[in-house]
């Protein structure tokens, strides 16, 4: 059987943002622009793929009672490595996302995939699942970012096409909830039709 469905599942059926509704903290906080959403999504995907791979490999030898601390240690290691790499090579991105990079450690999506998928599946499946869920998360955050940036700043990916200020509420927290809510409705309506 083809393994591609692991990727598409994560993208649509198990979409972390609009279906599982996980990882809401970075979703609401970092999507003030399309670029920020995209960068946050990619950072999370990096951790997700690597932690899925390692956890699927070590799961058979990890005693059941200490599995959560072991998983969190593995995840925290990858997050710290990512944080150091970003500080060194993309300091501007690190500055925008700031606190939300270390917070990937406690992102429910990452531990959720480790506990719910990677420790029961093989390496290849786990890597593909990480890729799928990571892409789903990245796409969702980017779409929310695009909508908020258009309404709030009249721009997309920093390219301004409506002069003036835009609707400021969409750059701030209330706009994040509104956009997330409406997009969730649209997404689930589309899923129900299928």
């Amino acid at each position, binding site marked *: 059987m083809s393994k591609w469905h692991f990727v598409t599942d994560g993208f649509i059926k198990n979409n972390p943002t609009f279906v599982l509704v996980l990882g809401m903290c970075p979703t609401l906080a970092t999507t*003030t622009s399309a670029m920020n959403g995209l960068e946050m999504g990619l950072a999370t995907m990096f951790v997700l793929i690597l932690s899925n791979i390692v956890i699927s490999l*070590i*799961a*058979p*030898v*990890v*005693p*059941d*009672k*200490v*599995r959560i*601390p*072991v998983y969190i*240690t*593995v995840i*925290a*290691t990858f997050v*710290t*490595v990512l944080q*150091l*790499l970003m*500080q*060194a*090579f993309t*300091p501007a991105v690190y500055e925008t996302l700031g606190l939300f990079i270390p917070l990937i450690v406690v992102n429910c999506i990452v531990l959720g995939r480790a506990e719910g998928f990677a420790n029961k599946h093989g390496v290849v499946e786990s890597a593909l699942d990480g890729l799928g869920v990571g892409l789903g998360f990245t796409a969702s955050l980017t779409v929310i970012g695009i909508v908020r940036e258009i309404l*709030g700043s009249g721009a997309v990916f920093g390219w301004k096409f409506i002069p003036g*200020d*835009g609707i*400021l509420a969409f*750059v*701030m927290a209330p706009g994040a909830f509104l956009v997330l809510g409406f997009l969730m409705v649209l997404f689930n309506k589309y899923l129900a039709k299928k």
Partner: protein
Amino acid sequence: MAAKSTLVNMALCLTAVCLICSAVVGGAYAVTADPIAEAAKAKTTASIARVLPAFSAEPEAGNVELDGTEYTYYNVPGAGCAIISAVSGFGGVLTLMVGITADGTIHNTAVLSHSETPGLGAKCTSDEHFMAQFRGFDPAAKTLAVKKDGGDLDAITASTITSRAYALAVANAVAVFNKLKEEGGRAHE
């Protein structure tokens, strides 16, 4: 399939995982330490270049205390002095870098970090009219405060608190500059 949860197994497993993870993080730190330091230095130099006239000399960093607050400054021979000044804004700490040339006039100011309201106070990073007021400002001849407080600065529309904070941060930097000048003068005697 999972190993048995005996005390020995658990302790061994956690120890092994933590050892390997520490080694990985340590390795990543060793590889990235130099690039991180370089990136931080490049950022500081870029900020200094924004607030002072073009310079070729290496900025010398220093710290000075004024009224119980510690300020970091960068002395650039031949160009002036860039002072980092932080005050409370409307939404959090507002940190500025203020470049002052040797004759005591402000060359330019730049926001290093802020958490002001988007579209209102956050305009202190983009409002050309507001920022232009500080360029070439002579603190000896004019008052660093918004017009509402009897000063010579136009506030950003609907963001008086941010504008006040900005003016205060610049005024503090000027006070630091004067203190440094005084100390420098004494040292030369």
